[in-house]
């Protein structure tokens, strides 16, 4: 019912005006706490201080996949339920998801060089995440190439759902193939293999980055609604001049 009420763009704008300041404050507080916990966490007995890269690499990697799942649900909203905000949500999420994926790749490389001896390896996990990044860029290019948002929406939704196949491949790549990347150490059968000294900062940072995504996504959705209003008014103005 709550989502149905927000389907009206004007109501959604009023909702974002109310919640965005609170979300921004919550993000800053949790991010500050997470950074404090990360920088005061002990060194790992094998990795030394480079374990600190984990606290930013892992949340960005999780979010790179989570954002695509959000876009996939939005794609269903566009194709099946024809929800008026579904395409707005997907389009607004793509640049944010691309940024998180870029950061996951970049921080992974910077972590890999001292630990593996190389910045990059064409193994299953790294390559599948690179493909995810390229898919984000393709979607952004598609939305920019087609001027009419409603025309682009359908093509983007189909591409998003096809791309969702890559998410389980990324997730299980470390189990299905031999990779340089370490296996699953948090969400696994038998519980996490990480000590709580690392697990607590990691979860705090994961919550902080998730809050950051929600805040930026709502703000970007608000912008997209305003952009579509501007476009409508510009077309009305052009029609008025032509008449």
């Amino acid at each position, binding site marked *: 019912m709550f989502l149905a009420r927000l389907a009206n763009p*004007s109501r959604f*704008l*009023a909702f*974002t*005006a109310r919640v965005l300041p609170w979300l921004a404050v919550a993000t800053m507080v949790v991010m500050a706490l997470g950074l404090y916990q990360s920088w005061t966490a002990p*060194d790992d007995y094998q990795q*030394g*201080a*480079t374990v*600190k*890269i984990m606290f*930013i*690499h892992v949340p*960005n990697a999780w979010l790179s996949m989570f954002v695509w799942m959000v876009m996939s649900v939005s794609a269903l909203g566009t194709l099946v339920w024809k929800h008026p905000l579904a395409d707005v949500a997907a389009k607004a999420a793509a*640049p*944010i998801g691309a*940024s998180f994926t*870029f*950061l996951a790749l*970049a*921080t992974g490389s*910077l*972590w890999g*060089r*001292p630990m593996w001896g190389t910045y990059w390896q064409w193994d299953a996990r790294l390559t599948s995440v690179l493909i995810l990044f390229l898919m984000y860029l393709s979607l952004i290019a598609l939305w920019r190439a087609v001027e009419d948002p409603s025309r682009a929406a359908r093509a983007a939704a189909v591409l998003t759902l096809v791309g969702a196949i890559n998410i389980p491949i990324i997730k299980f790549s470390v189990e299905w193939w031999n990779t340089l990347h370490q296996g699953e150490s948090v969400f696994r059968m038998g519980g996490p293999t990480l000590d709580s000294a690392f697990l607590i900062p990691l979860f705090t940072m994961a919550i902080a980055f998730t809050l*950051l995504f929600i805040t*930026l996504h709502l*703000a*970007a959705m*608000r*912008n997209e609604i*305003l*952009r579509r*209003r*501007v476009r*409508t*008014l*510009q077309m*009305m*103005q052009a029609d*008025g001049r032509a008449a």
Partner: protein
Amino acid sequence: MSALGPYAAFIGTSYALVALVVTGLIAAIGLDYRRQQAELRRLEASGVTRRSGKTSEPS
């Protein structure tokens, strides 16, 4: 940085890169909001309004 050991540069670069990209995202979204609001105000000031007659400002 010296407390971070021999790999301080990798750790510092990682955190700096995240800070840079996140700041860039926040700035881009904030500037886009200002741009759209300004364009809406300009259009409404020139007499173009939506059929509902509502203005760009959320209530």
